[in-house]
């Protein structure tokens, strides 16, 4: 059983499991599936700085911080015990293309040439992690949600604003991956 779970899970198994998080959180206590709001709660808890956006009772939303804490632990469990230690089967054309930029799949979830402490000291690593992270935090809050809150939760509720947001996520991603990222990776 464990051996079977240690294999990569196909999309038609893992996708529905992700979808089940929506009713699970609703049934556990009327919670709306969403993760990026945890970033806001962290701001509200640590540095509200009298900004109206961060002056609310974040303690009432504590569940969200427990949830993301759980994700952290789950990530550790899966990476330590539920793994077959094989690299992810990525499309070869793409891998060849990326190798031009000295990016290789080194049996990891991220390319270590960029996502490592040494990588942080390179220009491209710094831009991708620091600027990229900033855009993620800024954009999700501006949009009012991220992939989980808008794409999965919002679309499950058939919300038009979430559909608009999801389309914009994809447009932004296509622009970055195809038109801008190649230049950043050259740095």
């Amino acid at each position: 059983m464990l051996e079977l779970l240690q294999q990569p899970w196909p999309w038609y198994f893992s996708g529905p499991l992700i979808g089940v998080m929506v009713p699970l959180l609703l049934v556990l206590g009327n919670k709306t599936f969403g993760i990026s709001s945890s970033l806001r709660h962290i701001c509200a808890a640590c540095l509200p700085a009298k900004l109206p956006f961060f002056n609310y009772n974040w303690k009432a939303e504590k569940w969200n911080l427990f949830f993301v804490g759980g994700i952290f632990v789950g990530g550790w469990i899966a990476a330590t015990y539920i793994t077959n230690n094989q690299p992810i089967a990525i499309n070869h054309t793409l891998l060849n293309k990326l190798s031009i930029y000295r990016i290789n799949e080194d049996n990891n979830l991220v390319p270590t040439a960029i996502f490592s402490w040494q990588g942080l000291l390179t220009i491209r690593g710094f831009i991708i992690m620091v600027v990229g992270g900033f855009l993620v935090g800024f954009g999700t809050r501006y949009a009012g949600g991220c992939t989980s809150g808008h794409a999965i939760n919002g679309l499950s509720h058939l919300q038009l604003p979430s559909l608009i947001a999801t389309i914009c996520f994809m447009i932004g991603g296509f622009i970055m991956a195809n038109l801008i990222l190649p230049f950043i990776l050259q740095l």
Partner: protein
Amino acid sequence: MITQKKSLLKAEEKNTDFEVRSLDTICTNDSHLQHPWWYNIKYAFAGIIFGIILIKAEVISWFRIQEMFHLKSFHMFGVIGSAVITGCISVLIIKKLKIKTIHGEPIFFIQKKFNKGQIFGGLIFGLGWAMTGACPGPLYALLGSGISVIVVVLFSAIAGTWVYGAIRSKLPH
């Protein structure tokens, strides 16, 4: 009843919030049962399960995200698509059968309101998503999986959220 209405009105006045979620859930939570903190532990367990799924679904892989945005694989579209369909069917079932929470409360759904932030913010997040290869959920899972440098990305994301909070009144919504 009147005091409840008053507090609702007060919350509305204070509600400079375009994302209905947090502030409104707080005011709808007024009637909510008050639970001790350890009731939240069940959400930590839900999080653990979700974290495991994220890793095993490979959606936290930077390479998978690049594949998706280069249209080189169906994997990500399959995961997100089947997740949405499953979520959709479950929400329909909850509504049809009027399923209650484990504490016996009726489940309520909050309508999101449209504002331009979903367009501008969505585009900005999309740019960041393709760079870091991670949305906020995967950031926590990646950090847990032992890639310590992700703490830099997470910290930048918190900084981005904070800056948004600081300048949001000047942004078009």
